[in-house]
């Protein structure tokens, strides 16, 4: 009887390591990982994998490559976390790595047109996917409209100059502050504001004919 009571007390009071990690902020999770808690890294991956995938995908426009780059981000984080300046925000550091990798990818593409061709092929393959994967609750014409609209939006974003697009995605999709964007993109605050203003205006101009 006493054993049962003790067991119940333990199960109620002591949260699991995973739960404790989930309750921590990024900085504490990083500290836990550096202190030897390997599971803390999984927590960081869980927190950032989807956000980073979306950020990288919107920047480079290639889903498969975006996944590879996100994996590369985590590998770099794993290798260099002991060098991370803990007085700064972890998320800013992670996005800086992702942003640099995405920039390199775009630069490599512009040098190697074959990569661009592969990307186009992938995109054309995406079009062959059945529509029910998009949204099973909508009517077919709604789904078509939605999918069509999504493609237009993505294409419009892709038309923005690279340095404008990067700032635009960080602000509008990731909700980063101007200061964080300045740190991630290694620009001053004025440049960030100017680029964001131009990106918004350009994006609105590009997409306007399709939505009016």
């Amino acid at each position, binding site marked *: 009887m006493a054993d049962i009571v003790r067991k119940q007390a333990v199960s109620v009071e002591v949260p699991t390591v995973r739960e404790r990690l989930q309750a921590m902020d990024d900085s504490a999770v990083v500290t836990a990982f550096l202190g030897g808690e390997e599971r803390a890294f999984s927590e960081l991956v869980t927190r950032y994998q989807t956000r980073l995938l979306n950020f990288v*995908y919107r920047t480079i426009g290639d889903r498969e490559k975006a996944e590879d780059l996100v994996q590369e981000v985590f590998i770099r984080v794993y290798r260099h976390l002991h060098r991370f300046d803990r007085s700064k925000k972890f998320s800013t550091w992670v996005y800086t790595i992702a942003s640099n990798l995405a920039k390199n990818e775009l630069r490599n593409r512009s040098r190697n047109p074959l990569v661009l061709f592969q990307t186009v092929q992938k995109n054309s393959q995406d079009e062959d996917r059945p529509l029910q994967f998009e949204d099973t609750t909508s009517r077919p014409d709604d789904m078509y409209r939605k999918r069509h609209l999504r493609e237009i939006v993505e294409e419009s974003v892709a038309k923005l100059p690279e340095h404008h697009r990067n700032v635009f995605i960080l602000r509008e999709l990731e909700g980063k502050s101007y200061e964080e964007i300045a740190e991630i993109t290694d620009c001053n605050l004025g440049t960030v504001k100017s680029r964001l203003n131009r990106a918004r205006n350009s994006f609105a101009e590009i997409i306007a004919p399709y939505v009016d």
Partner: protein
Amino acid sequence: MDCRDFCEQHLAFVDDTLAGIELVRMQRHIAECESCAKQDAKIRRALLLFRNLPSIELSPDFSSRLEARLKSCQEDQLAMTQHSMRRGAIAAALASAVMLGYIGTTLFNQPVAPRDILLPPVVATVPEPELTPITTSAPAIVASVSAGLTIWPVALFAEQVPVRFAHSKLELTNYTR
């Protein structure tokens, strides 16, 4: 406020970071200027579309692929650590060997310190001044220069100094005095 000011402050206007007075001025301008109102609506609508893009989900094998890569990364790091530790150990072994060698040579090749020579004690006695007569069978030749110094053999200076014969029984006093 004119249209140029409106465009300059539009970024902060959309982000709701304008101060109260500026916000009111912007709103008033939109109410008055149809062109700026259109532009504002166009931008807001475009942003709304972009912000509502469906989120991209990870492929099912993403986690397993990442796990495999992390594992290989861990192994690489471990191998590198072991390699550097091995190198460190070799370096430490070499350093300690050199150190031991140095200590050995300094200990065993140390020059032997000169020991004190033990001699039997010396008893010093004051010799009694004693005149010893020169006993020669034949008469000796003694030459002396004017300065009083006696030089042997006198034959070298025979032509320059007066010569005299000294009797064998002549008792010599101590010349050093």
